[in-house]
């Protein structure tokens, strides 16, 4: 399967291990990720606060370039990039007036022929037997709380690939990797998103609730699919401990890292070293 | 025919045959709901769409209708 691949900004910074692990896993699964040339900002969370048109135009520029690559589908790892691309794609397909207007702005005309998939969906729809055949070091005994956050599965009219209230795509992938997935309550609760940067006092309370639910469900680690979720749950664990007097020490992984681990890819290659929480615990469980 | 090449706007005259029990009532419901549609469809009430003889349709075209709607 070939995809036009949109890396997004955090891939070069806080989400570097997501980038590394995504490519490593895709290679094992025979997925070809072709980076969209001259890609630009997806608009992220800032653009729709500024201008509706800008919010559609920024991702549409990338869709326009991707369409020219002759690959029918676009994928990206970051949940916010996915949301932006999927939202713009839907609006551009449905609204001809908007399409004409946006195309005149971006200069990269988009006809509306693409499908946008999250990397979660792209991996989730791979034949389970193909995935299983690559799993050489099953994560037996590892209890994983799969965390989806907000933008990956909601609103359902834009995302639509998984149940917005009790999503299962990451759970199913983790099961194929041999892990034990947990039925826990906070799969889709808000992680605080950019408040982790702008208003940490608020964010730590939100992060605390998610970490508490994961710990209560007896999780060894949390699996995520969004660089911001990872940033808040991983990096800000220390802040939660400091500000709220807690003592969390639960590793947080991108689901691609854990899947990669089960496929025998080395932790270094997957970017385990860039975590703030201690990943050794998990490595010791898996062996 | 009412296709006027001089006039850019084609304004077809449409004869509708609607069943008394469903689509005629449906057209009433559109009115009750204050929906809006173009006024160029005019309805003949029939007791059932099965009452519409193909001859009626041909007659409408023969007499200059641009379209015929049979609904039921």
């Amino acid at each position: 399967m070939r995809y036009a691949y949109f890396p997004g900004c955090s891939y070069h910074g806080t989400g570097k291990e997501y980038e590394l692990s995504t490519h490593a896993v895709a290679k094992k699964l025979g997925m070809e990720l072709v980076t969209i040339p001259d890609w630009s900002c997806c608009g992220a969370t800032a653009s729709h606060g500024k201008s509706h048109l800008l919010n559609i135009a920024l991702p549409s520029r990338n869709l326009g370039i991707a369409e020219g690559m002759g690959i029918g589908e676009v994928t990206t790892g970051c949940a916010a990039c996915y949301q932006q691309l999927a939202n713009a794609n839907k609006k551009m397909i449905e609204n001809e007036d908007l399409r004409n207007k946006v195309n005149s702005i971006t200069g990269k005309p988009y006809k509306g022929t693409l499908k946008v998939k999250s990397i979660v969906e792209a991996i989730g729809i791979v034949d389970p037997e193909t995935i299983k055949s690559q799993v050489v070091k099953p994560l037996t005994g590892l209890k994983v709380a799969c965390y989806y956050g907000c933008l990956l599965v909601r609103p359902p009219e834009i995302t639509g690939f998984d149940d917005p209230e009790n999503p299962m795509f990451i759970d199913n992938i983790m099961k194929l990797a041999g892990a034990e997935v947990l039925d826990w309550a906070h799969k889709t609760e808000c992680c605080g998103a950019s408040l982790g940067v702008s208003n940490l006092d608020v964010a730590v309370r939100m992060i605390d609730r998610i970490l508490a639910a994961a710990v209560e469900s007896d999780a060894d680690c949390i699996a995520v699919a969004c660089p911001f979720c990872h940033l808040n749950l991983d990096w800000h664990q220390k802040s939660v401990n400091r500000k709220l007097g807690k003592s969390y020490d639960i590793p947080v992984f991108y689901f691609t890292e854990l899947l990669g681990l089960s496929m025998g890819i080395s932790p270094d290659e997957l970017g385990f070293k860039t975590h703030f929480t201690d990943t050794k615990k998990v490595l010791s469980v898996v062996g | 025919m009412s296709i006027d090449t001089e006039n850019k706007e084609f304004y077809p005259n449409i004869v509708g045959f609607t069943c008394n029990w469903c689509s005629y009532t449906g057209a009433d419901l559109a009115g009750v709901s204050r929906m809006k549609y173009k006024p160029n469809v005019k309805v003949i009430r029939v007791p059932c769409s099965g009452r519409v003889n193909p001859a009626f349709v041909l007659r409408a075209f023969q007499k200059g209708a641009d379209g015929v709607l049979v609904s039921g």
Partner: protein
Amino acid sequence: MAKRIGLFICWCGSNIGGVVDVPRVVEETKNYPGVAFATDYKYMCSEPGQNLIISKVKEHNLDRVVVASCTPMLHEPTFRKAIARAGLNPYMFDMANIREQCSWVHSNDKEAATQKAIALVKRALAKVSQVEPLFESSIPITKKALVVGAGIAGIQVALDIADSGHEVILLERESTIGGNMVKLDKTFPTMDCSACISTPKMVQAAQHPNITIMTYAELVDVQGYIGNFEITIKQKARYVDHTICTGCGLCTEKCPTKVLSSFELGMGKRKAIYIEFPQAVPNKPVIDPDNCRYLKNGKCGICKKLCPVGAVDFEQKDELIEEKVGAIVIATGYDLIKWEEIYGEYGYGRFKDVITGLQFERLVNASGPTNGLIQRPSDGKEPKTVVFIKCVGSRDEAKAKEYCSRACCMYTAKHAHQVIEKIEGGHAYIFYMDVRTPGKAYDEFYRRTVDEGAQYIRGRVSKIYQSGDKLVVMGADTLLGSAVHIEADLVVLATAMVPTEGSEKIAQLAGVNIDKDGFFIEAHPKLRPVETMTGGVFLAGACQGPKDIPDTVSQASGAAAKVAALLSNEEMATDPMICHIDEKMCSGCLVCKEVCPYKAISEKTITERIAGQPVERMVASVNTGLCQGCGNCTVACRAGAANLKGYTNLQLLSEVDALCR
């Protein structure tokens, strides 16, 4: 003789007159061939309007009339009666629908609406030029009614019809009559015991000499028409001969199979041979074939061995019973929406202690599975903190139904009151969108509940999750503008009322329309609320829309009055707009017979004289009682021998011509 048409154009106040230029329509149509008189009036359907028509018919010696006003669905009968009073045949008439199909839909373009109104009036004039007098005949009425569904609505309908002296078949698919009301504990706002007021009505129905109760039976076919329905009922096999059974209960006591009881809404158990509840009518058991060990694999049969009168009969089969009735009342009631399939945020039914209001009724009911002790399903503990969520499935355009289910605000107030009253140290929190309490003594009841300490929180619940043995309810208090987290022991959902399963099939059988939500549609929402557009078929209770008990009972009595009025006639007039065969033109091919959906056409032999010799030949013949006037035969007839009175070929062709001119 020249035709003398009277044309009367209605303003309907500003409904038509505000959009269509009525005087201009009169001006443009008054010279149409045959029009002898034309005028307009503010309200043609009013008494002075009708008198205007009558006086002008007489004054101008008119022989036919066109009224241009609203839809004929509304006032065709009104105006037909009016011209009959003026001495004309009521069928020398046609209407132009210039309101529903003109002024209301084209109010944004007054000129176009006026043009269309002129065209529609000309169509009616063209048709009325071709009409001929028609005469009604009469058919006898079967003085018996069928009531489908025996909840409180059906029981009330049956009792009222029976009291007026007519026979009633009260049909119920469950093994007992009673419906949902008998499951309730108390009824708001008076807190009467529900069973205490409904079970005596069940007994009354059972003992009434004019009522035949048929339980465990379903309607499978309806033929015929108002006054003369032929119905087929499937009596499901009970595997117990009720003519012998004494209802001693030994069989149910000894039956070894226990399954979840649907009467208890899964909160309690019953046996495979069972009586739904102690006051059931009839108070005799049936065997559930899906769970009976003998019927499934031929082993057991304890009930048969023990029955002192030998009433258990494993060989019993479903039976079809045919009946004739003159009227049908649909009273099929409601189910609760399947919230488990919709609301993931409330756990998709995974949490045992998230229950519906109806399940709560069983918990708090002295004859329920917990003998009236409020015990939560998961561990049987008494809940201290109970959270109620209203509008689950109601008023939710995104996920479920747009409408308000009407009874939930009141029963939730009742439940909150019961929590506070029955549970020591009990707390009730109610998440609501609005509190709606229109009804006698309703708001007073709600106020009292608030005064007793029920905490009403205006906002929605975004999530429920299990944390230890608590259910954490996350919601919003939109009045305080803050998030709310409540650790609850039990959560009760006020789920939307939806039409009962299978009501769509009943609608098809009875030829009645249902709305987008599946509720039966009444003939007019304000003025004909218990009738349907199908003659002889009436509605009662929640099958027509969500209702509480007082409204249901009122509507049931209303429907019964309509049925009693119909059945008090010996015979009724038939619609004369039916098929007519011109025997001279009929070749006897009988293609018409093939296409007739009402089996109204048969062959008959006539004798003709050809060259002085009598010759016998076959022609088609129409049964005027069965013909419903659909006109399918007229299209199939190659010779043009079949024609439909009131919708003749000539009439329809002249209408086409008028619209194309």
